[in-house]
Structure formats: structure tokens, C-alpha cells
């Protein structure tokens, strides 16, 4: 019943998008609407906004003449980027978690570190990517040299750690004074207070933070691929296909669809993490006595 309703909502959302897109193409000015030299509405011609059925049709045709159908290529690229995103997300979440715990534990760390944590996110990603690539180029892990995709993962992690660090810090600080005093009265030290009180209390803050981190990791991975020129992922496809925008305008949209699917898959996977840990939230029914 609930699943059917969710499915219905999804179908409705897709339908609304289709109606908006094709509707705008129908009524919009093919050259866009320009007022006082500022374009306030985009061009509606087939070059800028291909018909949705053209995009769907493009998915089934080969990428290059005689090659594999483009939907396979796009899905493979999305899977490649998913792997990079997953590694970046895991590293970012772990780093964010450790930072949050350290900031909670030591007031001085919070005061000293938090401004830099916030500052870190104002550095433009495009400027950062070549730096990371430059620093890491000569690294080796024993017999394994540094790989290009690792650079991209580091960039994804760089974006993903931030919401986790900030959200988790809020969560760790969320227990009321009474809860902390209670743990003190049980002679529990910092570590046991962390395990029994602060960590479980932080979960409602952690999960929204992880969702943000998931989205940030996708952005980081796609932009990282583009700015480091890493091959094999969806970011690379977007760049390659957009160069053909004039001759084959539907092509770049297939890569964008792949990126959107990647984002949805990551959001779904992160959402799954929540299920086993938030049982107590799902059955709240007040008994009065």
C-alpha cells in the first residue's frame, strides 16, 4: 500500500517533468526570451532542448558508429563513478566522524578546527583538483602506485566530510545536561558516555548529514573526473558528449540522465543505512495512563 503510493508519487513527478519540458518547448520562444539584453528564459529549439523521445531514442543507438548502445556505455560509466563516489563517501564520512568526536571531546579543538572546516568548503573545487592530483602523483602504497581514480575519490571525500563533521558535532552535543549527569552518576567516563549516550543520540543528526554527504560525494566525483581528466566515469562522458552538442544534441542528455540515476542510487543506498538503526522512531504511539 505504502509502496504503491510511493511509486505513484514517483510516476507523478516524472510526468510533471515531462509535461513541463515538452510544454515549454511547445510555447517557449525557440530563441529564448530576452529582456533588456538579459536572457530570462532559455532557448526552446531542438538544439538546446531536444525532445524527450529523441533522448530516449538516442539511448538505444550506438555511442559511435558500430559501437555498443549508448545506454550500456552510460550505465557502465555511472557504475564506475559510483565506485569512486562510494570510496570518497566512506573516507569522508569516517574523517567527518572522527573530527566531530575530537571536536566534542576537546573544546579547544572545536574552537581551533571548526573555522578551518568551514573554510575548507569555500575553496573552489576546480582549483583544488589539480592540486590533489599534483601532490598525490608520486605516492605509492607498496607495490601499488597512486591511481587517477584515487584523486577523484579524495576530492569526493573532501566534499563529503563537511556535512558529517558539522552534523555529527551537533548530534554529539545534543544530549541534555540531565543525560550527561546521569552518565556521570553511573561513574561512566568519556568513552562509555560516548558509546551509550552521545553516539545513539547523534543518529537523528547523522542521517540527514550522511544524505548531504552522499550528494556532495556525487558532485565531487563528477566534477573531480572532469577537472582531473579521469577516464571511464560519467563526468568524462558529460564533457565528451557536450562537445558534440551541435551535431548530436540528445547525446549529452543521456550522460546527464546517467548522472541523475547515480545520484538517486547513492541517495537510496544512504537511506538504507537508516533502516536498522532507527527502529524506535517508527512506532510512536502514546499510551496514556
Amino acid at each position, binding site marked *: 500500500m505504502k509502496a504503491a503510493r510511493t511509486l505513484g508519487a514517483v510516476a507523478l513527478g516524472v510526468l510533471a517533468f515531462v509535461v513541463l519540458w515538452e510544454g515549454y518547448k511547445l510555447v517557449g520562444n525557440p530563441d529564448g526570451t530576452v529582456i533588456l539584453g538579459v536572457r530570462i528564459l532559455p532557448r526552446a529549439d531542438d538544439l538546446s532542448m531536444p525532445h524527450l523521445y529523441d533522448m530516449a531514442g538516442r539511448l538505444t543507438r550506438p555511442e559511435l558508429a558500430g559501437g555498443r548502445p549508448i545506454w550500456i556505455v552510460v550505465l557502465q560509466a555511472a557504475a564506475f563513478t559510483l565506485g569512486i563516489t562510494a570510496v570518497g563517501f566512506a573516507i569522508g564520512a569516517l574523517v567527518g566522524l572522527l573530527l566531530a568526536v575530537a571536536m566534542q571531546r576537546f573544546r579547544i579543538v572545536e574552537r581551533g578546527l571548526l573555522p578551518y572546516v568551514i573554510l575548507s568548503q569555500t575553496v573552489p573545487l576546480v582549483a583544488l583538483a589539480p592540486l590533489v592530483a599534483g601532490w598525490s602523483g608520486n605516492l605509492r602504497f607498496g607495490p601499488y602506485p597512486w591511481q587517477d581514480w584515487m584523486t577523484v575519490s579524495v576530492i569526493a571525500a573532501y566534499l563529503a566530510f563537511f556535512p558529517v563533521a558539522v552534523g555529527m558535532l551537533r548530534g554529539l552535543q545534543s544530549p*541534555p545536561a*540531565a543525560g550527561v549527569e*546521569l552518565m556521570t*552518576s553511573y*561513574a561512566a567516563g568519556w568513552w562509555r558516555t560516548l558509546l*551509550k549516550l552521545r553516539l545513539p543520540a547523534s543518529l537523528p543528526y547523522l542521517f540527514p548529514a550522511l544524505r548531504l554527504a552522499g550528494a556532495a560525494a556525487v558532485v565531487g566525483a563528477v566534477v573531480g573526473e572532469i577537472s582531473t581528466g579521469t577516464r571511464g566515469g560519467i563526468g568524462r562522458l558529460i564533457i565528451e558528449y557536450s562537445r558534440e552538442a551541435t551535431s548530436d544534441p540528445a547525446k549529452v542528455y543521456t550522460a546527464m540522465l546517467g548522472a541523475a540515476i547515480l545520484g538517486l542510487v547513492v541517495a537510496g543506498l544512504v537511506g538504507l543505512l537508516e533502516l536498522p538503526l532507527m527502529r524506535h522512531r517508527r512506532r510512536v504511539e*502514546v499510551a496514556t495512563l
Partner: protein
Amino acid sequence: MTAVVVSGVTKVFNAGRADEVTALSDVDLTVGDGEFVSLIGPSGCGKSTLLRHIGDLLPPTRGSITVAGQPAARARLKQEYGIAFQQSGLFEWRTVQRNVELPLELRGMSRVDRQARAREMLELVGLSEFAGHYPAQLSGGMQQRVAIARALAVSPPLLLMDEPFGALDEMTRERLQSELLQICAKTRTSTVFVTHSISEAVFLSDRVVVMSPRPGRITTTVDVDLLSRDDSVRQSEKYFAAVTEVRQALRGGTQGRTATP
């Protein structure tokens, strides 16, 4: 042995700064074994601070405190007392049963033992059927009973309570007061009880300690000698006499005069 001895305790917050506050000034208090003592006074008189000193949750600036014959810090490490606050402070991610088990878990008690003990405590407060519920599914009064069960789970010789019924309606409050008295009598626990309510203090206590603010100090101690502690006592002469006495002591205290005990 006496349950609590507080001698010469002074607490100064923000010492040496512009916002320096003397929360407690030279307080002496003794709680005998099995005795029920209430601390009553207007906001800011330091009654909660005094309770936290006894529980070693806050260090006094000067003075000493012994609980069950040992320094307060050691008593805390040995879990010699149970504590309950105005907010039940239950962990919402744990079931009622697991909330009561928490102090036992931290003591390293085996799973089987602590489950049995928690069931016993829930029976004592009349919530056996709700063992598997989460706190959010219970009413405020029930949550407070769970908090009391949790405070009593380690069978502490001393119970510290900071306005535990403050957030409840009058009817629930009176029922829980009776229940608390029965439990304390059954378990022979000494109790220090912080409250705003004169009637609550008189009904529950063997002794009502009246405090006054700026600086926080004990102004009067009223001995309450009620014959029984059932609900009928709330209409008795002795009860009203004690209520009047405490009320006058509070008035005297807030006007800044030092009443003599």
C-alpha cells in the same frame, strides 16, 4: 551510619569575575539512614546545586561531603546513589526495559541478571506490561516512574531527586508521591528530594530543609511527624500545621531575615 553529611559547603560560580555568584554559603546538612529529607526554597536558592554536590556532579568550592561514610567522589564511583531529574532523561532509543538496565549494564552485571532485576524494578513501579515500549510511547507520569525504577535498579542506599514530579499534573503527582513513599519504605532507601512545592515536601518528608537565596543557605529545618503517610494524612491537623510552618519559614527567608531553627 549516616547517609549524607554536608559540612561547611560553599559554592561560588565564576569566582573573581563580574558575574560572580555565591550559590551556597556555609551549608551544613545531615541525612540519617532511611530518612527522607526535602530541600525547598525559591529559585536560585542553591537547592539543586546542593543536590549535585552530594552526587559529586559538581565540585564545591569549599567544604566536605560524605555519602555513606566516604567522600562523595568515591561514593559516585561505587554507584552508592541513584538519581532522578525533572525531565525523566530516558534514552529514547532504548526500550523501557533497556533503560532500566542501563545502570546495571555499566556496572558490568550479566545480561540474565540485569534483565531479571529490571523486570523486578518495573514491577515495583507497576509498569511490567510496558517493558517493551519506547519512552515516547508513554505518558509523562509513566516516564517518570521508569526513571525512578532506573534510579533504584542498583539498590542504592541513597536516592537523589531533583523536582522529579515538577512537570506532572497534580493528580499524577499525588499518586506518584504515595508510590514513592511505599517504595522508599520497602527498599529502606534514604532520600534527598528537591522541590518547589510545600505540600509535596511536607507529605513526603521526615524533615523539610528550607533554603533562601543570595547567598544560598539553610534558614530553617522543619521536622514533620505525621502518624501515617497515606492520602488521608493530607487532611490532618498535623499536616496543615507543618505546611503553615514551612510557608512561614519561606516567607521569612525571602524577606531576607534569618529565621532561627
